């Protein structure tokens, strides 16, 4: 075990994967000698050489097109998109190519080795284009997996699982926690399961569900609610696609209430999908409407970021409202 922040854990996961398998490659804008703008790929080029860790030209559609080809060839590419806000030029390569490669070829070919890493989310004064949470766009695309870690331990275990998973995986990293989140991380290779949510705290009155950086917000809100005598069950979804309906439904059978929170805007956000599925599954068990606490339906603001974001106070209020309904 070593104490690491999330960036160190991600760097350590990449290092672990590259050491174990020479087919693993890391590339993207500024990923080479500089180690990425957040330093997630620090020292990898020095350690594994320029052919396995390198800068690419500034062209996201090219990075992912290149990565798709590499994965089809049998390599294990880990492509970095510098900010999730800049993933959209690669939307075609991800949605029409990565996601459909196996299906359209009848499993003759696949890009299962592909992992796309991208820092996402707000709270860093990044304004419109360094703050977005684009998971819902991709959640509408069968064939992709989408994973979001909440802390360093999760980050390493989930990233190693994503790299080794036989399906193309988007790995969204909560950049607000890159240095803020610190914890004990095993030094060896370990993999956490994809497609499985984790109950991080058991409770009886209300289920509070989120992922990534929002888990820290949930923890603060829950601490406050528990002081009011409300027993909260907390779930980290961890994998957005395909998501773990069972764990969430089982929790709601018990609590009868669900609060879902994410940073992305309300309309078309993934909380809507969760709410629809859970009301189908748990209709007769629900004691109150499923609540969504999300970013507002605006572009991501700068100065009024705090007002926009679903912070612990808004989540706390939703918990109270759900229980008092």
């Amino acid at each position, binding site marked *: 075990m070593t104490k690491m922040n999330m960036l160190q854990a991600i760097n350590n996961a990449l290092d672990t994967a590259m050491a174990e398998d020479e087919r693993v*490659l890391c590339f993207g804008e500024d990923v080479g000698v500089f180690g990425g703008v957040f330093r997630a790929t620090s020292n990898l080029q020095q350690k594994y050489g320029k*052919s*396995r860790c*390198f800068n*690419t*030209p500034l*062209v996201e*559609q*090219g990075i*992912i*097109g*290149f*990565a*798709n*080809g*590499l*994965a*089809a*060839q*049998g*390599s294990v*590419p880990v492509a970095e998109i510098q900010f999730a806000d800049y993933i959209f*030029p690669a939307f*075609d*390569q991800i949605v*029409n*190519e990565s996601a*459909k490669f*196996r*299906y*359209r*070829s*009848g*499993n*003759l*070919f*696949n890009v*299962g080795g592909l992992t796309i890493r991208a820092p996402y989310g707000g709270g860093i004064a990044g304004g419109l284009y360094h703050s977005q949470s684009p998971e819902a766009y991709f959640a509408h695309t*069968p*064939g992709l*997996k989408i994973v979001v870690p909440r802390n360093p331990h999760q980050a390493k275990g989930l990233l190693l699982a994503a790299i080794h998973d*036989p*399906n193309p995986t988007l790995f969204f990293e909560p950049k607000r926690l890159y240095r803020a989140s610190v914890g004990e991380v095993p030094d060896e290779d370990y993999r956490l399961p994809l*497609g499985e949510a984790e109950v991080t705290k058991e409770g009886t009155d209300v289920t509070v569900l989120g992922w990534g950086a929002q888990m820290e917000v949930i923890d603060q809100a829950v601490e406050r609610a528990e002081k009011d005598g409300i027993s909260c069950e907390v779930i980290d979804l961890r994998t957005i696609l*395909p*998501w773990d*309906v*069972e764990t969430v439904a089982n929790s709601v059978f018990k609590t009868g209430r669900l609060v879902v929170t994410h940073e992305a805007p309300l309309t078309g956000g993934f909380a809507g999908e969760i709410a629809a599925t859970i009301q189908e599954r748990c209709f007769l068990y629900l004691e109150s409407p499923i609540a969504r606490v999300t970013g507002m339906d605006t572009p991501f603001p700068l100065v009024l970021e705090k007002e926009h974001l679903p912070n612990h106070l808004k989540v706390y209020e939703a918990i109270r409202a759900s229980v008092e309904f």
Partner: protein
Amino acid sequence: MTTTKSKVVYSPVFTDGAEFRIPTFRLLKQDGKLYKSAKAPDLDKDKALRIYRAMVTTRILDERMLAAQRQGRLSFYMQCTGEEAAVIGSAAALDDGDMIMAQYREQGALAYRGFTIDEFMNQLFGNEMDYGKGRQMPVHYGSKKLNYMTISSPLATQIPQATGYAYGQKLRGEGHCTITYFGEGAASEGDFHAALNMAAVHRVPVIFLCRNNGYAISTPAAEQFAADGVAPRAYGYKMDVIRVDGNDILAMYQATQEARKLAVEHNRPVLIEAMSYRLAAHSSSDDPSGYRSKDEEAVWREKDPILRMRLWLESKKWWSEDDEKQLQENMRREVLETMKRAQKRPPPPLESLVSDVYDEVPPSLAEQFDKLKAHIRRYPDEYPKSAEHAKGGA
């Protein structure tokens, strides 16, 4: 820091690139004889006949399957007519272990590699023996064993993928390269630029083969770009480039052979612009009479690449009238008989609707599938293709 090493001037000087005039490489005249100063590439009889048979096979397959589409047997078809030399000449210059990442009009390359008529037909009819499990429209072929990547409809997406695939080949060090095909229209997509730039920067063994066939559906090349074709763009990437008469099988073969050497032995990506003409419609859904003249088509019909090669083969005494007659008859018969067989084969099983989305069917999709089967069981007559498969299960 800038990497430009150009000289400095003290008054504004604009250049328009007019000094870069790219010649067209050509060896064979339409009468099958070599140009005076031209020398045929090293191409033995066996290989020449393998190429020629693939060209004729492609032409016959195209004619027959377009007719089948018109008869309502097929939903859709795309012909390669007029471009057989550009496609097959280049494919023949490669090692069969090299990867081909095509656009959709390169069935000739697949025929050359040995894809059987039966395999073509199974894909076209989307039956239970189609490798693609009936999921894609006709002509979206793929073959793992022949190193031919399954076709994807979105244009140009295969081009940066080819760069990536070839980068992987370079790392593996087995001496293979990737060729990717695309039209002059697809070369307007951003993916084209991304792919060529990345290939040049990372010194990737990839051959970019642009089939400049004059039209992107109805849009003529003159409305696609202002420049002299696609070839001059290679200068912008510092990439080797050659423009070739795409209807000249020998020139296509030799140019690609040399390109392959540059790619594999020197890690230099190459752009080849094959100048040809799409003699057929864009697809079975298109009617060229709305945007080009019969006269224009007639000019290009005179430049038939298959006839040009046949005349060359005959001049070498490698081919005769009888050989031609026999090949034509045999191919037509095989295409017809195989088509009838393939058309009768059952559709892919219902399970293929949900398999291969992921390596395993995820629980929520399995649940959707169970619901679908239950629904089909209630209305078996409405789902004749799958009613049998829907029996059993939840």
